[in-house]
């Protein structure tokens, strides 16, 4: 029974991490209908850069900012000079992002090698504490993840619900052409949104690299987990990403604890099941 609750907590913390990593992906997809297959490699890039900055300065927060900023730049570049030209041609964009992810992943392997990196956490987040009721040790950084996910979620919600940019983004999701006809330069908005999504990816990478670890191949895991989370929850919906992350995080941890052999298969089965009945995901809106 104790294990059951601990696994629940594990699932919750993992879900927080998944939510953080999936946010950028769903933001980009929601507005632009771009399936950014380079999402994983952007996360990895952000994580490596975050690692370098943390090693250099010793400030973890600086690492997060640097990881986010560098990915924002790369993302803006990709959208402005490559992807933007093919807006609306979803298949071609998907293929281009696949190509970019192959190239970038190889570049990262070249630049940072095949070793495993862990980003050092600030003193206060290191180590573990004893949980009162369950009376087991628990990692501080994992508990913090729940808070981080809430902060990211709330900030993103505020941005989307309360700011002018948020209004523009929502309007763009609803009817891109009409937004243009009202005098908004959709290209610029797309670049901004892509940069934001990429920045979220980069920051998530630093968090991921601190809570767990990063190495070549992590990009594919990032991508697949984000994809599953977003698809299950509903593409383009932040609330959906949260719900999807929760489902997948819990499924994965209960799988690992009670049926480790097939745990990873569960994740994909959940996704297949959801999609077979609701192709747009649990909270996603049907295509018109």
């Amino acid at each position, binding site marked *: 029974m104790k294990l059951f609750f601990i696994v629940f907590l*594990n699932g919750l913390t993992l879900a927080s991490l998944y939510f953080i990593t999936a946010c950028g992906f769903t933001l980009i997809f929601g507005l632009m209908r771009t399936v950014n297959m380079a999402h994983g490699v952007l996360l990895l890039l952000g994580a490596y850069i975050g690692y370098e900055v943390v090693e250099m300065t010793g400030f973890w927060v600086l690492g997060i900012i640097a990881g986010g900023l560098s990915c924002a730049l790369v993302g803006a570049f990709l959208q402005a000079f490559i992807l933007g030209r093919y807006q609306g041609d979803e298949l071609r964009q998907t293929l281009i992002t696949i190509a970019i992810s192959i190239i970038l992943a190889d570049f990262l392997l070249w630049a940072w090698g095949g070793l495993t990196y862990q980003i*050092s956490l600030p003193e206060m987040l290191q180590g*573990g504490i004893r949980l009162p009721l369950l009376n087991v040790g628990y990692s501080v950084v994992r508990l913090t993840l729940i808070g981080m996910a809430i902060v990211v979620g709330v900030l993103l919600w505020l941005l989307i619900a309360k700011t002018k940019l948020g209004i523009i983004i929502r309007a763009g999701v609803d009817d891109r052409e009409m937004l243009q006809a009202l005098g908004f330069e959709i290209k610029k908005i797309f670049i901004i949104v892509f940069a934001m999504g990429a920045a979220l990816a980069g920051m998530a990478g630093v968090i991921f690299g601190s809570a*767990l*670890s990063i*190495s070549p*191949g992590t990009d594919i*895991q990032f991508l697949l987990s984000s994809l599953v989370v977003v698809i299950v929850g509903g593409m383009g919906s932040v609330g959906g990403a949260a719900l999807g992350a929760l489902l997948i995080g819990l499924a994965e*941890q209960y799988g690992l604890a009670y049926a480790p052999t097939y745990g990873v298969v569960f994740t994909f089965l959940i996704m297949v099941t959801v999609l077979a009945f609701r192709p747009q995901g649990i909270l996603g809106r049907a295509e018109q």
Partner: protein
Amino acid sequence: MIVKFKKIILVGAVAIACLSQPILAADKIKIGVISILEGAFASLGQDGVRGAELAFKEAGGKVAGMDVEIIVMSSDASPDSAVNAARKLIDHDNVDIIIGPLSGSEGIALRDLSKGNKGVTFVNGSSAAQDATFREGSDNFFRFGGDGAQWMAGVGTYAFEELGYKKVAVVAEDYSFPYTQVLGFMSEYCAAGGRVPKKFWTPIGTKDYSSVVYSIPDDVDAIFVALGGADAVNFLTQYDQAGGDKPIIGGTITIDQSILDSKGPFKKLLIGAPAGTPTVSDYEGKEWKEFTASYLSNFPEGMTSPTIFAHHYYMAGKAVLLGLEQVDGDLSNQHKALRASLNNLEFVTPTGGTMRLDENRNGIIDNFVTEVYEREDGSLGNRVLKLVSNVNQTMGQDPTAFRAIGAVSRENPSCP
């Protein structure tokens, strides 16, 4: 008509093949080397290639008066890619000998390929799956080294008798190499009286082990961890963060220097951890020091000392050279002479032991029981606790009894 047509094509093909590939003058030996040069293992695979090259460099690039040409091919850790690489070496580059591959399942794949290519001699690199030689062996597939079980020789006994661990949980990756490592550990440990109540097989590349961490029974005395690279770092970190304090027993690649050099508080768990390995980077033996010096002078860009991969590819290269030398480069009759000579070869290994093969063409090796210790500068290293000599593939047990255990798997062996 069709038959006739086919004949014409065949005749034509033969004629052209003869024209385009003149019978090679027998003054050159072509050797293919297969290693993992892409993906996460690239830097390790590179070191394997260095090992093979070192053997040929030391011989001056010549054997039995003939030039040696080395052709390197990459695989990506998948058996399929290893087979493709080997096929290209055989069909396109017409190599005589193949050295490699690096990882377990690749080895099994090349063994199977060797059965249909009797004109090529295969010498395993560092692949350490038991079945590559133990079951369904192939008479032109040789392994001058041990399998993953041999690499654990001495550890089970040491853990039970010296450290007094009566019960151990196992956390290992879910594929053939860790299965073999667990077998090596458990066959000794269970025989000595130890018990393994629970084994956790986790998919390779698992990031989040937290639920495994909390599932480890409270009443075990230690945890045997056979994870590699990122998996080991992740598991140990999370175990430490969860307040875990059971002693660790390491698999061969779990206490690799790259993991000891990683940063993080988890490292304190590893201090004092015993492990089994055929390669100890700062071993004090005379032959090892010579080997390291030779490696460093030939590859200034390489690692700070040869890895297990360089060590094993080196032994493969050395065996090939010695064998060819003995038969004076005679590769006629499907390498008959070379094979006989390899079967009876004996040479001194970089760790000072004597390498020779058993009847399955698998190496009889010297293995080390090591311990992770804290160096004076605070960094971690491995030091030798015990040398176990003449470890054969059945771990010193009666071959029939050992074979009766059956092929390694998640459930086999078992002593709950």
